[in-house]
């Protein structure tokens, strides 16, 4: 209950920051996701109320953009680019590699909550393809070897 309260309260603050108005809806959703790492149901309900927008409209926006997640996600978000340029440079093999190494499929999160896997269609860095974005870092010219190294590094950092 206290958690639900604090989610709603926090959401209200976020909506207020964006002018308590529906014109800031996408920015509000981005901020909610930034805060909670995903879009909790209570937050969407609270945001709809504060912006005076029907809950169904907010849910439409939240489900339309692939950048939004309705499920809790891991600490590290791995986005594999499957856009055309990355695809022809072997992005699907990289996807296989990530799936095998982490034991999850796109849209899923590892049991230890360390990694979530997502796929995107072109991140606008085609010349560097194949591209994998981990959190906010762009890794270009990705190879199988590099994947092992990156995952190792993140696991080590987590162990500190």
């Amino acid at each position, binding site marked *: 209950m206290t958690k639900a309260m604090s989610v709603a309260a926090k959401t209200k603050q976020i909506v207020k920051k964006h002018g308590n108005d529906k014109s800031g809806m996408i920015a509000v959703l981005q901020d909610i996701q930034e805060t909670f790492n995903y879009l909790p*149901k209570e937050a*969407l309900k609270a945001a709809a109320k504060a912006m005076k927008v*029907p*809950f*169904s*409209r907010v*849910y*439409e926006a939240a*489900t*339309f953009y692939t950048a939004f997640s309705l499920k809790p996600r891991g600490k590290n978000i791995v986005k594999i680019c499957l856009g055309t340029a990355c695809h022809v440079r072997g992005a699907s093999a990289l996807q296989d590699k990530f799936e095998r190494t982490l034991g999850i499929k796109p849209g899923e999160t590892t049991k230890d909550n360390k990694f979530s896997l997502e796929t995107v269609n072109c991140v606008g860095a085609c010349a560097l393809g194949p591209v994998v974005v981990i959190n906010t870092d762009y890794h270009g010219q990705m190879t199988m070897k590099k994947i092992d190294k990156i995952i190792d590094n993140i696991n080590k950092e987590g162990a500190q």
Partner: protein
Amino acid sequence: MVNFTVDGKNISAPKGTMLLEAIRGAGISIPTLCAHEAVSRSGACRLCVVEIKKGNRTRIVTSCLYGVEEGLTVNTKSDRVLNVRRLVMELLLARCPESEVLQKLAKELCVEPQARFVADTDKGKCILCRSCVRVCEEVVGVSAIGLFARGPHKTVGTPYNEKSDACIGCGACVYVCPTGHIEMTSTGDKRKIWGRTFKMQACSKCGKFFAPADQLKFISRKTGTPLEELKICTECR
């Protein structure tokens, strides 16, 4: 009055009339699905296409959304129109093979299911025209439903597919849906829609169950009419 021709016939209609109404008014039939008098137009189904000619340029437009224009030449049966309409119908049929409305319309338009469009099995009868969502927002004013997700995953429903506390059980969405996708069942004092069961109000005069209690409460709140006055069905009023 605005003057123009449709299939070679001279027609005039008041300014602001949509081509669809003007053409039908002249006794020429046009198939439609999403145009409904209770909702604003969306141009979603694309069945009402016609070909228009201005100067020496021709193009395909949706007649339900195109206002009449002086001197326009409209063709409702050109090869181009028939081709576009057939393709639209084939795609709709592949999306909702089980919709009787679509089956019937396809038959009328001599359209058969096409092997190259693999039939969907998970879309029900919904063509995603958004009419139900519009009526719920524009006319009823509760916005209980929406179209969620995108692309091939897009579906109509309530948020999270849960029972909606915004829904008043009025059934306006069922009324405007062109394909019969939305299920509403009524048994005695209960009505079920969008996964929620509503209690029906019995008329205080004749005792007939005539409207969901939640709908009457909503109307009372909105219009300021005392609830007791609303508990009489239209026939007894």
